[in-house]
């Protein structure tokens, strides 16, 4: 039995995993990172547009602070977010940006004096303060009151990933590449690491660790039309679900990005719209102001994506041989801007469409983009159900994003959560709970069980093909569990997915091959992805309301009275055909920002009786504190700093505020 021991096992080599690994390593823990691919290839690299942090350096960012960022994030989440977590996040984001600046990220900087920008299709001249010259600048993104998105042209994720990855190399943290965690080692109460498959030679080994952190990103590949990389299959979340005791939360909360190029599904950044790009229909008409007169193209992603789909259904889509789409027009931004700030977009348009976006419109349609749901954790990133198991980044439901994530908040979450969760992992390892007594029999049993699964799969004599079943699942998810959902279709999707599960037990491979066997890998992952798809579809079928990205045409209202709660999906018995759902209340009584209207989208939520009570309390606290400084008011409303590691609690300096 091949066993490797470490203090901390981080599963996933993207931004969240790398940053958490660094935090734990700096606290003296021995860390190993597992990654499907070399870390710099991770999907984090694809984040183009930017990272939200309320630095407030620019003319359009003046007056920004944690309070404004918090309000935007909670409204964006359609009140599904954990508000304590949102507070921890907005407070730490400026620190994360500044740390990354020190680590070499070439953030775009403020240039003093006048400069022209496009706002609402008009050329506007902004004047940047002398005092701000050379500080980190920001661009506009959807769903925010201020220009808050810090960026590196449109290669923000790439620049961040390379800087953080280089830091892990400097820290000497080993990355075991082309390795996939296939099961967690656990006894039902404590996690002891993972069984790991080498994707190059197919061999299994056991990684025994005092703490295990899953940071494997999202599961967009359960959808056909997705902006996600091909490695985003959600296996990290699936192996947590398969423990039977760890729940996945809010799996039905799936975000669709408004502007994926059609039909390839490759993302073009929200920065296009943030910088002044427009959406147009078959007639060249700019339609978003008709639906959203306030925020237009810059309403939150769920709202824009839904308006686009409705507009296409109303017969206003343009057509090409692959189907219907709309147009993204960035020609008005000018060649110079596109060549410097939107260069990836230009390259993508050139290579995949053969067009020049400075002269031609880009065909776009919404595609699956982000999974708000994931492994349910507490504010420190500790997973429910198993001691010693942590999660962060898109794989987790920490729950910063609730039912809709704002653009620029996900790359920010990766590093911020990594900073916080990595410290919590180190705390755990340093505490008595971090001590570990694991029997070799348990490790061997887990390894043998995984071996048996692979052996059975590769010996299968059935006639089904994994690739075919995968495509059928992806089609069901896109067609029936997509942007607009409806009870009957969801029920049919759940049935169809269950039939696929049965068929997936009849897979036959083309033959047994030594070394890497891509066909076996696909067949094995399919089983996991079907479970995730069922969690999404079943959760969506049961949630009879519309909230954020989860839109039910048969229940179009947000229903706080009955549904202000988080879905928890468990899979306690491998043989059961569906996940078991439970619900966790979001307590309005503790909220800093009780439910209300988001400032865009529909305005007809079914109110919870506790909302008015809490609002009255908040009004009284604000009246009592009067002119007190904003930190004192915030602390009286909902204290959160005690949840952060001590070194992350300090106030953030701004040009007009000292730290």
């Amino acid at each position, binding site marked *: 039995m091949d066993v490797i021991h470490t203090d901390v096992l981080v599963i996933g080599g993207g931004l969240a995993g790398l940053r958490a690994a660094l935090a734990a390593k700096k606290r003296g823990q021995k860390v190993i990172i597992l990654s499907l691919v070399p870390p*710099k290839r991770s999907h984090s690299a694809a984040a183009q547009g930017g990272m939200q942090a309320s*630095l407030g350096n620019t003319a359009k960012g003046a007056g920004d602070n944690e309070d404004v960022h918090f309000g935007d994030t909670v409204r964006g989440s359609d009140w599904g977010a954990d508000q304590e977590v949102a507070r921890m996040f907005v407070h730490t984001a400026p620190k994360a940006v500044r740390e990354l600046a020190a680590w070499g990220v070439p953030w775009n900087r403020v240039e003093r004096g006048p400069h022209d920008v496009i706002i609402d299709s008009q050329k506007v001249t902004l004047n940047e303060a002398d005092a701000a010259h050379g500080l980190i600048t920001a661009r506009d993104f959807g769903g925010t009151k201020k220009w808050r998105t810090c960026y590196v042209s449109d290669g923000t994720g790439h*620049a961040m990933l390379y800087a953080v990855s280089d830091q892990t190399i400097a820290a000497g943290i080993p990355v075991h590449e082309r390795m996939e965690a296939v099961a967690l080692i656990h006894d039902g109460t404590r996690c002891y690491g993972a069984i790991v498959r080498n994707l190059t030679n197919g061999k299994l080994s056991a990684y025994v660790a005092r703490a295990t952190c899953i940071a494997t990103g999202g599961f967009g590949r359960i959808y056909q039309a997705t902006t996600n990389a091909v490695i985003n299959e959600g296996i990290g979340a699936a192996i947590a679900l398969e423990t039977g005791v760890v729940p996945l939360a809010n799996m039905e909360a799936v975000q669709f990005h408004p502007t994926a190029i059609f039909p390839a599904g490759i993302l073009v950044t929200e920065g296009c719209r943030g910088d002044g790009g427009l959406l147009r229909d078959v007639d060249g008409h700019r339609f978003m102001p008709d639906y959203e007169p306030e925020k237009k193209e810059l309403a939150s992603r769920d709202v824009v994506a839904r308006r686009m789909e409705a507009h296409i259904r109303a017969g206003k889509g343009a057509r090409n041989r692959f189907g219907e789409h709309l147009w993204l027009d960035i020609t008005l931004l000018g060649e110079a801007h596109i060549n410097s700030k939107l260069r990836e977009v230009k390259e993508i348009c050139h*290579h995949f469409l053969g*067009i020049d976006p400075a002269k031609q419109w880009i065909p776009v349609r919404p595609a699956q983009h982000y999974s708000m749901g994931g492994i349910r954790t507490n504010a420190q990133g500790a997973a429910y159900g198993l001691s010693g198991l942590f999660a962060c980044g898109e794989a987790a439901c920490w729950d910063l994003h609730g039912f809709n994530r704002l653009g620029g908040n996900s790359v920010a979450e990766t590093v911020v959560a990594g900073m916080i969760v990595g410290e919590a992992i180190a705390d755990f390892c340093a505490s008595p709970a971090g001590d570990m007594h694991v029997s070799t029999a348990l490790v061997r049993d887990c390894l043998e069980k995984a071996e048996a699964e692979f052996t059975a799969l590769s010996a299968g004599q059935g006639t089904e093909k994994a690739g075919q079943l995968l495509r059928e699942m992806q089609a069901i998810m896109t067609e029936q569990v997509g942007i607009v959902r409806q009870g009957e279709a969801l029920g049919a999707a759940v049935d169809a997915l269950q039939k696929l599960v049965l068929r997936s037990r009849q897979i036959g491979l083309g033959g047994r091959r030594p*070394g890497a066997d891509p*066909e076996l890998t696909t067949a094995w992952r399919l089983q996991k992805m079907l479970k995730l798809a069922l969690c999404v579809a079943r959760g969506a079928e049961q949630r009879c309301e519309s909230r954020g990205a989860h839109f039910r045409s048969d229940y179009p209202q947000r229903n706080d009275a009955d549904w202000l709660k988080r879905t928890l999906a468990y899979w306690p018995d491998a043989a059961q055909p569906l996940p078991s759902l439970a619900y966790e209340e979001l307590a309005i009584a503790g909220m800093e920002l009780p439910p209300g209207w988001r400032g865009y989208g529909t305005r007809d939520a079914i109110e919870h009786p506790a909302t008015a009570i809490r609002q009255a309390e908040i009004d009284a606290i604000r009246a009592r504190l009067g002119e007190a400084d904003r930190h004192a008011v915030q602390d009286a409303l909902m204290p959160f700093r005690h949840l952060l590691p001590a070194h992350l609690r300090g106030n953030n300096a701004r040009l007009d505020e000292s730290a």
Partner: protein
Amino acid sequence: MIKLFRRTPASQAPRRLTFSILRHNPADPASRPQLQDFEIEEAEGMTLFIALNEIRATQDGSLQFDFVCRAGICGSCAMLVNGRPGLACRTLTRDLGTQITLAPLPFFELIGDLSVNTGKWMRGTSERLQTWIHNDAPVRLDALEERMAPELAEGIYELDRCIECGCCIAGCGTAQMREKFVGAVGLNKIARFHLDPRDTRSDADFYELIGDDDGVFGCMSLLGCHDVCPKQLPLQTQIAYLRRKMAIVGLS
């Protein structure tokens, strides 16, 4: 009206494409490197990503290749396309003839078929060249960030855009002869950190890393790297600049 795709006239039948792919599975002692032909029908907007996945799904489930982002951002899918290094994900079949030869990038350790271990080599080079910001000052998380001239930040990003795909190494004459040569990817990284004022290393420090034939003096100026870089990094300029800088250090 916007011209979306260069359309094939409706009357014209779709092309049959023949892919000759270099097959070898090092894990199988019986495997010998050989070209294997696959035929598929071309579709509109088909990239090598789409074509290879179709071949694997319908003809040979054992075919090994690497894709991650499939959008030209991550650098995973570099391979030799008709003998020239490039990113397979963003290579459209319509830009190629009907006979397409695919082979793994040379120089890197072969994992199987079109898959090579660039990650191992890149990590090794990073460790050798210490490609991270060297600065002992503690990071002040709560304070305003250090200022930087906007054009300098953009200049650093220009060099930071490297995606470590390995094309430059595959296109390099020196790398084929000198196993430890750091190549354009390594030299570009040094240029990037050399340009960055946050890195406190001196020219003499950089000379220690690249001031020899495995570094900047090994380059024969054939400029294959510059020609094949999918990100069009200014490699030629940077290597020439570094050589001049390092020559001064070496002579002083």
